């Protein structure tokens, strides 16, 4: 066995530790909770000069995985991390990587795919990948996250397929445990192979190849290849597991089985919940119950023969999944059933969905499920079903909601129309369209938005991108919005608004809609990285909406990661400061200049520090949008949480900002001179 040291690590840190020990050539990165930290730890080591890898922060998940594809086709070892809808945004590229035979590794800190939005655990992201041709390993513990990352690259390169390491978001990604890691990185490198096995490379100019051709009738053969590689992986994995056990003392297998070998009842369950279930197995066996736990470490290739051997003599199997396949039996229940039809026994298979949205799964929960299987069908009526939900609740059917507020009439919120000058006191009395929220003290978003809304008359409908703004206002079952509001995930608000505006205009034309509505999109600066194309689309179509970007110079809802709006040298959790990296390497993105190319009628910038200007811009924005034009406004918005500033400084930071570095000042001056020239020369 090799020398190892004890460290305290979270699941995300363990993934990063493995990435660092392996010595990847590159990482493509885009943040999404709960996997974001992996790239942050890797970048920290990079900034400190501890490792040499290309670390590229993409504009989206799709951009990040495409960068990884580029690294891999150029012969590099490349890795990425993701969760939930981040995985789905990559989805275009993921089956392609299998088809192209690129042995990259993707860490998946699982999180439910959903709307209404929940950022916690669920396996619907993992379930979506099952048919994409990826070798898939499940890590139930923090230790396994480290180990399986190393094993994943080894098997991926052995068969030329991409590999995925799935571990539970929060339950494992954020669990801190005592684990063992190799003392000497070179040992890991030796196990993996110092250099990747030879494969075709895009950079081989002496022998050029065409990668990613167009293919007609031949395509079906590429599918055969993927399946053959899976079969090969099935043969190789036991050998790799054994080799790794020799080095580490930790032995992995296709299935983790715990309990009575000849058990009559089995619980089939993935990842962190399987660990908790072991406690239940011990308790039930002390009672004399014949039970065992079966948890697959390898999901793809599906170890059907091993599963058959392990389960064929078991009378009752409860397959508990952190995912549901609606209107059908759940994913693994079906797969277990398909394996067991080869057994002569008629095993009883129950399917239950549990733990979605991060509901914790404790030993008591496993005990409940074991007892359900033991006693079936002598169980309460609501449990007498093949498929069901555990931990869901019906609610109080007799509860009668009491109205606490009434609609805002257009008259109450019309304070600007027809007036050249307005009295601040009169505007201060205007009813709030957004009520109490849980933003951090001193958050600039709501100061800006509140002030802007003072200048907007009449009915308003909001669209929010994902970010602090939506999170602190709409925690179910409460809402801060007295007016209609729609959050349609991440970066989609502008296009969503376009759809709603089309329907609004249609109803107006048909004479079915009396109310005049101003449509306002609210997004963070991050929403306009990942959603840049959609903003440009709305501007090019000149859709009559006001898009407001609160620019706090980072992805502040997800822990302060790099946004392209960030300043040169600004430190982010994924753009660290050290001997090898000085924070963000480029100047700040100028979104107004980007949008100028769309020739949108009105683009503005504002800040709460200059509220008169902000109010005038609000009034002008509404005038423009009423005339059928697209409006984009950018607010400079303090984030005391991630700027580490005193909340009371708030708008004063914006007003009397701290001196900036010379490099930033020069760039700002350069951009300003350009604007002055454009102003002096209208033809520009």
């Amino acid at each position, binding site marked *: 066995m090799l020398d190892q040291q004890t460290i305290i690590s979270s699941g995300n840190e363990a993934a990063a530790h493995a990435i660092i020990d392996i010595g990847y050539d590159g990482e493509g990165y885009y943040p999404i909770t709960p996997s974001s930290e992996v790239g942050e730890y890797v970048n920290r080591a990079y900034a400190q000069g501890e490792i040499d890898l290309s670390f590229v922060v993409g504009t989206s998940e799709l951009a990040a995985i495409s960068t990884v594809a580029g690294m891999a086709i150029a012969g590099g070892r490349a890795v990425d991390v993701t969760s939930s809808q981040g995985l789905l945004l990559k989805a275009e590229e993921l089956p392609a990587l299998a088809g192209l035979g690129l042995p990259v590794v993707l860490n998946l800190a699982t999180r439910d795919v959903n709307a209404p939005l929940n950022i916690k655990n669920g396996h619907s992201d993992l379930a979506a990948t099952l048919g994409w041709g990826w070798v898939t390993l499940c890590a139930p513990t923090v230790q396994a996250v480290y180990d399986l990352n190393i094993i994943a690259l080894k098997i991926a390169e052995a068969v030329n397929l991409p590999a995925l390491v799935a571990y539970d978001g929060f339950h494992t990604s954020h669990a801190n445990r005592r684990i063992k890691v190799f003392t000497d990185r070179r040992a890991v490198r030796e196990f993996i192979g110092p250099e990747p096995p030879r494969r075709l490379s895009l950079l081989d100019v002496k022998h050029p190849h065409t990668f990613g051709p167009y293919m007609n009738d031949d395509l079906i053969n590429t599918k055969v290849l993927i399946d053959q590689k899976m079969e090969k992986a099935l043969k190789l994995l036991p050998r790799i597991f054994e080799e790794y056990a020799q080095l580490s003392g930790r032995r992995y297998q296709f299935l983790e089985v715990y309990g009575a070998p000849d058990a009559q009842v089995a619980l089939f369950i993935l990842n962190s919940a399987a660990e908790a279930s072991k406690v239940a197995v011990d308790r039930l066996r002390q009672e004399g119950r014949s039970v065992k736990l079966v948890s697959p470490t390898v999901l793809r290739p599906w170890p059907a023969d091993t599963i058959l051997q392990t389960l064929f003599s078991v009378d009752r199997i409860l397959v508990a999944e952190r995912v549901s396949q609606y209107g059908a039996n759940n994913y693994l229940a079906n797969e277990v059933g398909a394996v067991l039809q080869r057994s002569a026994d008629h095993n009883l298979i129950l399917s239950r969905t549990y733990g979605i949205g991060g509901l914790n799964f404790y030993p008591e929960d496993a005990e409940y499920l074991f007892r359900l299987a033991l006693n079936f069908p002598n169980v309460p009526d609501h449990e007498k079903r093949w498929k069901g939900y555990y931990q869901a609740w019906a609610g109080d059917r007799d509860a009668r909601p009491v109205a606490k507020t009434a609609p805002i009439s257009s008259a109450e919120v019309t304070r600007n129309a027809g007036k050249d000058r307005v009295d601040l006191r009169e505007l201060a009395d205007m009813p709030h369209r957004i009520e*109490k929220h849980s933003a951090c003290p001193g958050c600039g978003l709501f100061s800006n938005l509140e002030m802007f809304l003072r200048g907007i008359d009449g009915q308003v409908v909001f669209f929010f991108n994902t970010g602090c703004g939506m999170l602190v206002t709409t925690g179910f079952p409460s809402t801060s919005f007295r007016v209609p509001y729609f959050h349609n995930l991440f970066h989609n608000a502008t296009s969503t608004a376009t759809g709603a505006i089309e329907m609004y205009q249609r109803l107006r034309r048909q004479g079915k809609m009396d109310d005049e509505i101003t449509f306002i999109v609210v997004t963070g600066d991050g929403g306009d990285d990942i959603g840049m194309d959609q903003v440009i689309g709305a501007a090019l179509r000149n859709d009559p909406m006001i898009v407001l970007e609160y620019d706090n110079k980072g992805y502040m809802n997800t822990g302060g990661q790099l946004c392209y709006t960030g300043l040169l040298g600004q430190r982010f959790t994924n753009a660290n400061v050290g001997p090898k990296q000085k924070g963000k390497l480029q100047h700040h993105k100028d979104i107004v200049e980007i949008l100028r190319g769309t020739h949108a009628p009105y683009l503005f910038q504002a800040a709460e520090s200059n509220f008169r200007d902000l109010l005038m811009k609000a009034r002008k924005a509404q005038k423009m949008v009423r005339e059928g034009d697209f409006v984009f406004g950018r607010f400079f918005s303090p984030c005391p949480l991630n700027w580490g500033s005193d909340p009371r400084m708030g708008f004063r930071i914006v007003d009397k900002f701290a001196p900036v570095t010379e490099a930033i000042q020069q760039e700002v001056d350069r951009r300003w001179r350009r604007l002055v020239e454009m102003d002096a020369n209208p033809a520009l």
Partner: protein
Amino acid sequence: MLEYRLPYQDGLGFTNILLTALGGDGANMAAKLLFKIAVEALNLDGGYDAKYGSEKTGTPTDVSIRLCLYGTPVRESGPTRRPHMLSVFRETLVLTQNLVAGLQADATVMVNTTKGPSEIRELLRLPSGKILTLDATRIATETQSRLNMPMLAVLAHQLGFPGEIVKEAIGKQWPRAKEANLAAFEMAVGRARSERFEPHPEYPLVEPARVSSPVGYANMLNGGAIDAFSNISIPERGAPPLGRVPVFAAEHCSHCGLCLVPCPDPGAIVYCKGCMQCV
């Protein structure tokens, strides 16, 4: 390695500790440090888990540490539901959170408050055990340290962690605030008031809460929509979650409206988070 005895052991061999605080109080860092000491200096094992969501400054959050002897399998994930030791960073949490649910008999409870142990016992409805109270906010202010320091000090003391080891770890973790932190540490241990409470028929043990609410699948609106009329978050007068709040003196008000300009909180005259931008 030092000889160390865990103060509690459940059926699986764990001491369960829960820290309940507001986002920004530093409970996470305190728990992380204690766990590090437990593993590295005392050769214990266990886990450190938080109730993660997307907590912002000032919203309630939990962190848990579970400690066991090295060699005991660590299998559960997520925060403990059955704490033996409870550290409450804000008195308001005693009133607003169901902290007694899952709390074990003969528990050790530490509360940042100006109230005394018996008053807290009644508010908390503690079944039995020891309550320590201290004005951690005052200690943090006086020493220019942070709230997590006095709370960490009392918890480490109750755990029986050797003071020198804890102090050394604090110095290493926050080298720049070492003096202030150590001053807070010393002051906290000296100032905590402690009282033991026997079981009382009016304060029974309470099972851990199950996740549930009046709105479930039987009465949820299509797509999980929220009816604005009945579910609006209206500002209510309440204790400020963090620090100080400005006092509104109507007789001195000139009705210029300027204080409302930077205010991020609608209805802040009633409910203020204390960012102090308006003063």
